[in-house]
C-alpha cells in the first residue's frame, strides 16, 4: 500500500475513534457493534488501485488523494429551494436528504396503519427497530468490500422501507437526495434498506440532484430483500455535480418467485462507480436490470454487475447503454455466476454504447462462471455510431439534420427509458436526457 492510501486509512480510523468518544449513550446501541466490526474489517482491507482486477478500468486516485472532510454544516434549505425537482403526482411519500442528512420539514410521509414503514434509517437505529436489525448489513458485504465497510462504519442516514406481506403499494416511494456543497468539499455516507415481505409490491424512486457546485464524495449502499412472490422495483436518477465522486453498492436478495427490477440513469458525476449485486436466492425468481448513462467532458461511468444464479429456474436480464462524447469513458463489467444446482437458468446480458467522438472510450468485460449444464446464457457488447441512413430518412421526411441526430440519440436512450411504467417519471427523465444531449452532444 502506498503512503497516501495508508494516510487516508489512518485518517478514517482517527475519525472513527473521535466519533466514538462523542457518541456517549448511543455507544450502547447494537448499531455501534456493527460499526466497530465494519471498521475492523476496513482496517485489514486496502483501497483498490488499477492493479486490482475489479478496478482495472477505473482509477480512483483522484478520489483517494482528496481525503474529503466530513460534512459538518447543515445548509438551510426551504421547500421553495427544491421546488424545481418536484414531479407533481409522482409520489405520496418522499424522504428528503440534504448532503446525506434527513430533512423532516422537506419530507412528506403519510401516516400508515397497516404496518408499512417509511422512515429515515437513523431514527430506527436509535429506536432499535427489529426489522432494521434483522436485515441491515446482511446483504452488502462489508467484510469483502472496502467502501461498503466504510459506509457501514460511518453509517449516517438513508431510507428504510418496510412493506408487510401481501401489501401492494400503488404509488411509488421517493427518496430525494440533494447535494448542496456550496463549493465546500465533503463526503457523506448514505444507506438505504428496502424490505418487501411475501407477496408485496413496491416501487422506489431514488433521485440525486444538486443545488450548488462543488466536489464531494458520496458513498452509498442500498440493500434490498425481496420476499417470496414479492415484486420490487428500484429506479434511480443521478444528476450530481460534474465534480462529484459517486461510489455506490446496490445489493439485492431475491426469494422464491420474486422479482426485482432495477433501472439506473446516470447523468452527472465525475467518477461514477455503480456496484450492483443480485443474488437469485429462491427458485423461479427473476431480475431485470437496465442502465443508461451519458458521459461527456471527462466523465467516467463504471457499471459493475454481479448476478448470482443460486437456484434453478431463475431469469436475469441486463441491458446497459451509454452515449459518450468528448473524453467520456464508460466501463461495463458484468459477471454472471451460475451455481451447480441452478439448472434451467436464463441469463441475458447486453452492453451497447454510442461513441460520438474519437477520444471517447468504452471497455466492456463480460464474465461467465457457469457450473450448471442446463443453462441459457448470452452476452454481447456493441459499440457504434449514429446510423447515417436513418438520419437521411428522417431528413427526407422534413426533420432537420440536428433534430434527426437528437431524435436518434434519444431513441438510443429510449430503449432503456421505455421500461419505466410511471409516465410522469419517464417523461421527466426523457427530458433531462434530451436537454443534456442538445447541450453537450
Amino acid at each position, binding site marked *: 500500500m502506498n503512503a497516501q492510501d495508508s494516510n487516508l486509512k489512518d485518517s478514517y480510523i482517527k475519525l472513527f475513534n473521535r466519533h466514538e468518544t462523542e457518541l456517549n449513550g448511543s455507544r450502547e446501541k447494537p448499531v455501534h457493534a456493527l460499526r466497530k466490526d465494519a471498521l475492523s474489517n476496513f482496517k485489514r482491507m486496502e483501497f483498490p488501485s488499477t492493479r486490482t482486477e475489479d478496478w482495472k478500468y477505473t482509477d480512483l486516485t483522484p478520489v483517494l488523494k482528496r481525503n474529503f472532510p466530513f460534512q459538518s454544516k447543515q445548509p438551510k434549505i426551504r421547500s421553495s429551494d427544491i421546488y424545481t425537482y418536484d414531479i407533481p403526482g409522482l409520489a405520496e411519500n418522499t424522504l428528503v436528504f440534504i448532503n446525506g442528512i434527513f430533512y423532516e420539514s422537506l419530507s412528506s410521509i403519510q401516516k400508515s396503519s397497516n404496518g408499512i414503514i417509511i422512515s429515515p434509517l437513523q431514527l430506527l437505529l436509535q429506536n432499535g427497530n427489529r426489522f432494521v436489525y434483522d436485515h441491515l448489513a446482511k446483504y452488502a458485504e462489508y467484510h469483502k468490500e472496502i467502501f461498503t465497510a466504510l459506509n457501514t462504519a460511518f453509517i449516517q442516514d438513508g431510507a428504510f422501507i418496510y412493506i408487510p406481506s401481501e401489501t401492494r403499494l400503488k404509488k411509488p416511494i421517493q427518496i430525494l437526495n440533494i447535494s448542496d456543497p456550496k463549493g465546500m468539499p465533503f463526503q457523506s455516507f448514505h444507506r438505504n434498506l428496502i424490505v418487501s415481505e411475501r407477496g408485496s409490491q413496491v416501487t422506489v424512486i431514488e433521485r440525486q440532484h444538486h443545488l450548488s457546485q462543488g466536489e464531494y464524495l458520496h458513498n452509498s449502499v442500498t440493500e434490498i430483500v425481496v420476499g417470496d412472490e414479492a415484486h420490487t422495483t428500484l429506479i434511480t436518477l443521478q444528476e450530481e455535480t460534474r465534480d462529484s465522486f459517486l461510489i455506490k453498492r446496490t445489493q439485492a436478495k431475491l426469494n422464491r418467485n420474486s422479482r426485482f427490477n432495477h433501472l439506473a440513469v446516470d447523468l452527472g458525476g465525475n467518477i461514477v462507480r455503480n456496484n450492483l449485486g443480485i443474488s437469485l436466492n429462491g427458485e423461479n425468481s427473476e431480475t431485470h436490470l437496465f442502465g443508461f448513462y451519458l458521459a461527456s467532458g471527462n466523465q467516467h461511468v463504471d457499471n459493475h454487475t454481479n448476478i448470482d444464479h443460486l437456484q434453478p429456474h431463475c431469469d436475469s436480464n441486463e441491458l446497459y447503454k451509454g452515449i459518450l462524447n468528448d473524453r467520456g469513458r464508460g466501463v461495463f463489467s458484468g459477471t454472471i455466476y451460475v451455481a451447480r444446482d441452478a439448472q434451467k437458468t436464463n441469463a441475458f446480458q447486453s452492453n451497447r454504447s454510442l461513441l460520438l467522438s474519437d477520444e471517447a472510450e468504452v471497455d466492456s468485460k463480460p464474465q461467465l462462471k457457469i457450473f450448471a449444464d442446463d443453462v441459457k446464457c448470452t452476452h454481447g457488447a456493441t459499440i457504434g455510431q449514429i446510423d447515417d441512413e*436513418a438520419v*437521411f*430518412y428522417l*431528413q*427526407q421526411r*422534413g426533420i*432537420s439534420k440536428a433534430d434527426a441526430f437528437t431524435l436518434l440519440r434519444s*431513441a438510443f*436512450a*429510449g430503449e432503456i427509458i421505455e421500461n419505466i411504467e410511471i409516465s410522469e417519471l419517464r417523461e421527466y427523465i426523457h427530458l433531462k436526457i434530451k436537454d443534456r444531449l442538445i447541450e453537450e452532444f
Partner: protein
Amino acid sequence: MIEIKNLKVSVEGNEILKGINLSVKAGEIHAIMGPNGSGKSTLANVLAGREDYDITEGSITFMGNDLIEMAPEDRAREGLFLAFQYPVEIPGVRMANFLKHAVNEVRKYHGQKTYDAREFLQKMREKLKLVEMDEKFLSRSVNDGFSGGEKKRNEIFQMAMLEPHLSILDETDSGLDIDALKIVANGVNKLRTKENAFIVVTHYQRLLNYIVPDVVHVLYQGKIVESGDKELAMHLEEHGYDWVKEESATV
C-alpha cells in the same frame, strides 16, 4: 413541377448518371423502368438530396427552386417525397412521434399552425385506412421489425400524411403480394390530384395496370434511352431489355 436538365452524377469517380433530361408536370405520372444497376435509385436519391453523390453537371428545378442548393429536409418541406426502395429501421423512434414531428416541421415551414395531439391522431387514423394498416403500428418503432410488405405500405402511409407535390416511389411494388400491390396502387390513385405528380420506379408492368402512367421512360446505363406511353411498358414486359441494350450499343 420538376425539370431535370443534362444531369450527370458520379460516385467515387464513377459516372452513374450520364446526362438525364426529364420534365414532369403537375398531374402527371411518369414511370421509370430499366435493368438493375442502371441508375434508377441513384436518380431518386439525388433528387431527395442524399449526400454521397457528386453532381458534376446539369440542373434540377423543382417548383421554381434550384433543388441542388437545398438541404434534404427543405426539399421534403417543399413537397418532395421519396418512398425508399429499402425503408430504414429506426428502433426507439415511435411511428406516431416521428410522423407528428415530421408533419409539424413541414407545417411550420409553411407558416401553418401545428396539429394538436387529437387532430393529429384523427388524421393518422384516416390515412391508415387508406393503406389498410392497423393502428397498432403507430406505437411501434419506425419500420422496426416490419415485414417487407408492411414497410412499403408504411412509405405510402407517410406519403399520405405529408401530402407532397412530387412523390418518387422507388420500387414500392417489389416484394408485395397481389393484395398489397392493389392497396398501394389504390392509395396512390386516391392521393392523385391535378396538382401533384408521381415518378414511379418499377421493374414490373403489373403495377402500371393499377397506376396508369402518362409517360414511361427506360433508363439504361445512366441515360434515358427510350420514352413512350404505357405501351412501352408492355413491350418491355414481353421482350425484356435486350433490344434496348442492342439499340443503345448501335447508337
